[in-house]
């Protein structure tokens, strides 16, 4: 037999073993990320780490594992883990506020959100990956990670070098966490060197992960940078210099105020308007895409796509579940519950499209912005006594959005390595519900660790203000809800942003409104290293060509993403274990 041929077996997409490995990795990541998200207020994309762990486990413990099998491992693991942010950034607000609610409905809303998120993107896969050819930078990076070990030493070395470099840099930035002196801060203000005023936001996160994502995002990343420059280096300084702020405030307060009340709401509006215009422009393409669902592939006589009819069932299920959750958790009328569930379902469908576009073009997922709109829309029909319903459905929407974005990234990876989309989607549909179950269990465990008041016997908070675990995102959501209840919804900014976004998406650059909207919405701290990565990518393509950049640049950038992501998880685990 020729030495080159090692296997004449069938090339399987998955086996019980690969699914089991994916579930174990996903469960472990979800538990640690849930705790870290409560403490630190952020979650991270676990896919790169799951891809490498999966490959390692399969190779060293079982002496097997192909590229597409490892793709299923990371699909399953990230499908479980991805709902963490959706749950932890929303549900704790109910406990912190002492609201009365039934946990069954919270769990049901989040589990349903996870399943709906996967279901809602059934028609979007073909549209955004096959037709629109969106980049999905993380998905592209993971395809490179999956292929590198088998592709040869050169690419593997590049991947490892990138990972080692970014892990080392991240580790050095974390010295204070492990009691060592600061050598390299986690972020630095370039204005200190340049002598520019404080309101000129020039803070850079020391994040090679952002640089790597920016590199892969390519030209779109430069537009994100342009959006950041517009928001932070043009609008903000002019507003402050012209003294066009409603009240007197110091520069750092002013920067925060302008972002929270001016540029961020405009960014959210741009995301919505930009996405709407993109949809309008591709209506004929959507029709043709839906028609193509019946195409048979792989010579198997069956389609590689989940049937479009499943989408209709998912929409019906979403509507029914939101209705039940709304009706049984607050004292609301049948009609109000009907309206609220209709609004939630329509918004969920639309938010799924916005998020998939934003993630596909830039890698950023605007979960909190979309959830904020969901809560704002619901509060138009609910009273301040019915906040539980708004938060509960908002949690379901958040989980669904996160799941949609993750599924699209996984499907992009799948496309690049040749996985069958139907198989990936089916598995993610099956395991997605596990994530909310674990996140909510971890959250309750921590909440109950607060104990009881020895005098009154009342439950003491395990997290939230005044405790060691601050749950910053949930606290922020609580403040936002209060603001919405008081009627402080920046509708004019959303509308103006919507018009700008629609106009930009009408230019010759597809989706420009969404790309620049995400830049107005994000913190400049991460836009800057991301933009730097895009600039490096752009120069690399100009000098060396696109093929060279794909062949050698992407594996190194994927390594940069991997190394930092790995260390983030290590530090999260150390935190969970009480070691740091």
């Amino acid at each position, binding site marked *: 037999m020729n030495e080159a041929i090692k296997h004449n077996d069938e090339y399987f997409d998955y086996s019980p073993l690969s699914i089991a490995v994916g579930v174990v990795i996903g469960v472990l990541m979800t538990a640690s990320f849930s705790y870290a998200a409560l403490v630190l207020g952020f979650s991270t994309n676990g896919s790169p780490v799951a891809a490498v762990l999966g490959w390692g486990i399969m190779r060293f413990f079982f002496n097997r594992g192909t590229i597409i099998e490892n793709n299923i491992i990371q699909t399953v693991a990230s499908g479980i883990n991805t709902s963490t942010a959706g749950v932890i950034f929303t549900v704790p607000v109910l406990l912190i506020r002492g609201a009365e609610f039934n946990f069954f409905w919270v769990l049901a809303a989040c589990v349903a959100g996870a399943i709906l998120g996967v279901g809602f993107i059934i028609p979007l896969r073909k549209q955004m990956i096959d037709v629109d050819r969106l980049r999905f930078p993380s998905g592209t990076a993971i395809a490179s990670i999956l292929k590198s070990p088998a592709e040869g030493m050169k690419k593997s070395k590049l991947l490892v070098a990138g990972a080692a470099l970014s892990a080392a840099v991240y580790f050095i930035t974390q010295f204070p966490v492990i009691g060592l002196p600061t050598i390299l801060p986690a972020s630095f203000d370039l204005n200190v060197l340049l002598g520019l005023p404080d309101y000129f936001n020039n803070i850079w996160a020391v994040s090679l992960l952002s640089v790597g994502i920016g590199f892969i995002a390519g030209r779109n990343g430069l537009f994100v940078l342009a959006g950041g420059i517009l928001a932070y280096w043009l609008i903000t300084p002019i507003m402050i210099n012209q003294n066009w702020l409603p009240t007197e405030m110091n520069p750092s307060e002013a920067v925060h105020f302008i972002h929270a009340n001016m540029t961020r709401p*405009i960014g959210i509006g741009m995301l919505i308007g930009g996405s709407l215009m993109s949809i309008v422009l591709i209506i004929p393409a959507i029709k043709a895409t839906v028609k193509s669902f019946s195409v048979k592939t792989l010579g198997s006589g069956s389609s590689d796509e989940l049937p479009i009819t499943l989408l209709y069932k998912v929409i019906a299920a979403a509507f029914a579940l939101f209705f039940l959750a709304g009706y049984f958790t607050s004292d609301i009328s049948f009609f109000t519950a009907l309206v609220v569930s209709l609004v939630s379902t329509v918004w969920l469908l639309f938010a799924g499209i916005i998020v998939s576009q934003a993630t596909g073009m830039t890698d950023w997922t605007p979960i909190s912005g979309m959830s904020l709109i969901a809560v704002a829309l619901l509060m138009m029909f609910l009273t301040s006594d019915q906040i539980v319903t708004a938060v509960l459905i908002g949690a379901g929407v958040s989980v669904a959005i996160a799941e949609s974005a993750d599924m699209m990234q996984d499907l992009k990876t799948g496309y690049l390595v040749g996985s069958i989309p139907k198989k990936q989607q089916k598995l993610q549909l099956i395991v997605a519900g596990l994530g909310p179950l674990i996140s909510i269990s971890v959250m309750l465990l921590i909440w109950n660790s607060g104990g009881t008041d020895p005098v009154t016997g009342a439950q003491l908070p395990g997290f939230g203000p005044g405790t060691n675990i601050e749950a910053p995102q949930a606290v922020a959501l609580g403040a936002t809800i209060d603001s919405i209840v008081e009627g402080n919804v920046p509708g004019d*900014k959303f509308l103006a942003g919507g018009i700008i976004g629609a106009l930009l998406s009408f230019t010759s650059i597809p989706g420009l409104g969404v790309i620049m909207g995400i830049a107005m919405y994000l913190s400049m701290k991460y836009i800057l290293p991301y933009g730097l990565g895009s600039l490096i990518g752009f120069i690399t393509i100009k000098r060396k060509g696109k093929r060279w950049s794909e062949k050698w640049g992407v594996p190194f950038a994927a390594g940069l993403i991997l190394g930092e992501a790995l260390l983030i998880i290590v530090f999260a685990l150390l935190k969970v274990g009480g070691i740091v």
Partner: protein
Amino acid sequence: MKNKIVNIVIVISLIFAAFFAAKIPTMWTGFALSSAIMLGAILLQRRERKALFADSQSDALTLNDFFSSLLKVKEKLEEYSKAPTEYFTKQVEDDLEDILPEVDNYKMGIIENIGVEKYTEIITTYANGERLINRGVSAAIDQYSAAAKEYFNSALPIVNETIKIINKIK
């Protein structure tokens, strides 16, 4: 030159529109004016782009270029169908690297040439073949040579079908 001026107008009107929008309260008159200028410039930009892709002398990639690259893919896949199983190792990735078209580079040209609906018809068909080719490459890298050959063979009729669709449209 004209294009550059149009782009500059779009950028300046965007800055003004964003600025008027950000102010509290929103300056609607200034916002409407700058948005109208931006819309006018965008319409000009779209007209210019249409003209660019219609001009056969321009460097813009068109449907014909995509068609030519598909013929090369077809040729390679036909060569693969006759190759022995042993041939399908990780070297096929390098083989295909310069042959597989980067659809993203052709997308705008094809849409301008034949419209988004027909572009979608072509590309949804081709994408099924491309995914099979990608799967074949993965199988070859993993040293599942027989499976790799099978996937390349399955991709060939799909590429042929895409060529047929383009011929019909042309």
